[in-house]
């Protein structure tokens, strides 16, 4: 179920002023109603692609269109919301939960940013939506990891756009919290939003993404997770950057079963592929098997 096209990236190249070419010839069209994972090594251009969508970097070639507008114009219409990494936020900052969510409304307010009745209603609804209404008067440092993430998702909802960019949403949260956040993201996508998630946590991609973009300066592969998130495409994207463990038939079974197990990981939840060489499939591990080994 793909919705309408929201982000159309055509032949996008970005070269920084120091001559570093971060993106080269990127072509993608993203739709509402999906959760799309953006996967690549550090320096592969994940953050540059995010910055291009947010209009922070100027394309040296090509264009990013959001609902038909160039990125900078789309920002003025509050189309794009950004949820920062937990480590990027100063949790000692003297702001309350409701203050943070209200920041999502600034783009709708006048010169002095005085909140109207509609702004207060939007903040209350957003907090209700993520289940954080009871915490609206907490200082943000007084929250748990999952609650912190929810507050910033609420800010994105209060802002009212249909594109939400998430940067490494699951660092520092436990598996239970991760599952409840994934459920929330699915609901938000089903309501007609595009959720674009930048992550290097390969193992979690099959658990929550509908589509995946594999990026290494340019798009190596893009499409539904089932058909795109394959060992071949990952090898193409990551080169020799992944830890690669393959347990072949003899290590796993006593019988003649030729199937083997491949574990791919950079540093977080591993991606597990199981089957005969070349025909391995993603295994969605059951809950019991998902204990994180850190």
């Amino acid at each position: 179920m793909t919705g309408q096209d929201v982000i159309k990236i055509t032949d996008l190249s970005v070269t920084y002023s120091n001559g570093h070419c971060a993106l080269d010839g990127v072509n993608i069209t993203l739709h509402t109603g999906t959760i799309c994972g953006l996967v690549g090594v550090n320096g592969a251009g994940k953050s540059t692609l995010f910055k291009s969508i947010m209009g922070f970097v100027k394309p040296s070639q090509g264009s990013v269109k959001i609902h038909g507008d160039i990125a900078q114009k789309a920002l003025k219409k509050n189309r794009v919301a950004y949820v920062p990494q937990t480590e990027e936020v100063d949790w000692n900052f003297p702001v309350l939960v409701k203050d943070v969510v209200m920041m999502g409304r600034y783009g709708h307010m006048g010169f002095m940013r005085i909140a109207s009745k509609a702004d207060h209603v939007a903040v209350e609804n957003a907090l209700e939506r993520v289940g954080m209404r009871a915490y609206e008067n907490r200082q943000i440092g007084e929250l748990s990891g999952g609650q912190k993430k929810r507050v910033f998702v609420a800010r994105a909802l209060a802002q009212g756009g249909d594109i939400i960019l998430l940067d490494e949403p699951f660092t520092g949260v436990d598996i239970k919290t991760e599952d409840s956040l994934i459920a929330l993201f699915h609901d938000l996508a089903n309501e007609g939003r595009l959720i674009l998630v930048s992550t290097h946590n390969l193992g979690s991609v099959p658990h929550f993404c509908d589509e995946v973009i594999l990026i290494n300066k340019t798009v190596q592969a893009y499409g539904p997770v089932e058909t795109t998130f394959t060992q071949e495409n990952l090898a193409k994207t990551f080169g020799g950057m992944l830890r690669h463990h393959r347990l072949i038939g003899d290590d796993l079974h006593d019988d003649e079963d030729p199937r083997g197990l491949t574990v791919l990981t950079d540093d977080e939840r591993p991606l597990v592929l199981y089957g005969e060489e070349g025909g391995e499939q993603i295994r969605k591990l059951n809950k019991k098997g998902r204990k994180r080994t850190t």
Partner: protein
Amino acid sequence: MDSLYTLLVEPLTYDFMQRALLVSLLIGVVCSVFSCFLVLKGWSLMGDAISHAILPGLAAAFVFGIPLLLGALIAALICAFLTGFLKDHSRVKEDAVMGIVFSGMFALGLVMLTKIETDVHLLHILFGNVLGISRTDLVQTAVIASICTIIMVIKRRDLMLFCFDPVHAGVIGLPVALLSFGLLVLLAMTIVAALKAAGIILVIAMLIAPGAIGFLSARSFDGMMMIAVMASVVSCIAGTIISFHIDAATAPLIVVIQAALFMIALAFGKRIKQHDDQAIATG
């Protein structure tokens, strides 16, 4: 009653004391409002650097007969951009670059001032002379301080968001580069406003301490700003009046009182250092 009269009212029967109190209140308010942004943005060292770096700008302003504010602004911007440029184009870390740039500019200013005949005493530029404020000085300070205070209070939400989450500020279409530049210009203006009264060395204390006191005591930004302003106003009044009675230097006494208030806030502030286990327990 007599003793209370002697304590509070008698100092204010003198013209120079009235002006001293008024000017210290003016700079107390503007510095404390600015200090909130400085503390939250982590620009304290930047404030220190710029307050020193404006010295050659002041000296040049004397020479060329341009307004002090203009000279100070140009010097402040040179310091900020030179620091940024050298950081980006060398392997030296930012604090070291900043240290070299501002102390170099400060030293240049000292050299210039020893060679130039001016009507302003070097010690007064460095440490201020709140008791020697003239009527013209007072008007000048009042104008600059009021403009800065009004701008910062009106745009406090944008500036606060710029300190808290510049990426989000950019995403909702705020002019982030302009806010950053504006904050820098406001810093230079605040320092110039405080120049005659506090001097460029002590102004940095007035630009940090109130914000730090507010930060330790408040849970919301508006609360922090109100506490910062109150702490600053109280120390300015107390410092001016006490300095009259004990015949001490006024600006340093204000700074000492602010430092004492900071220690009290540290000991009794609402916001104790948060521990990870506390956050998990409440979640």
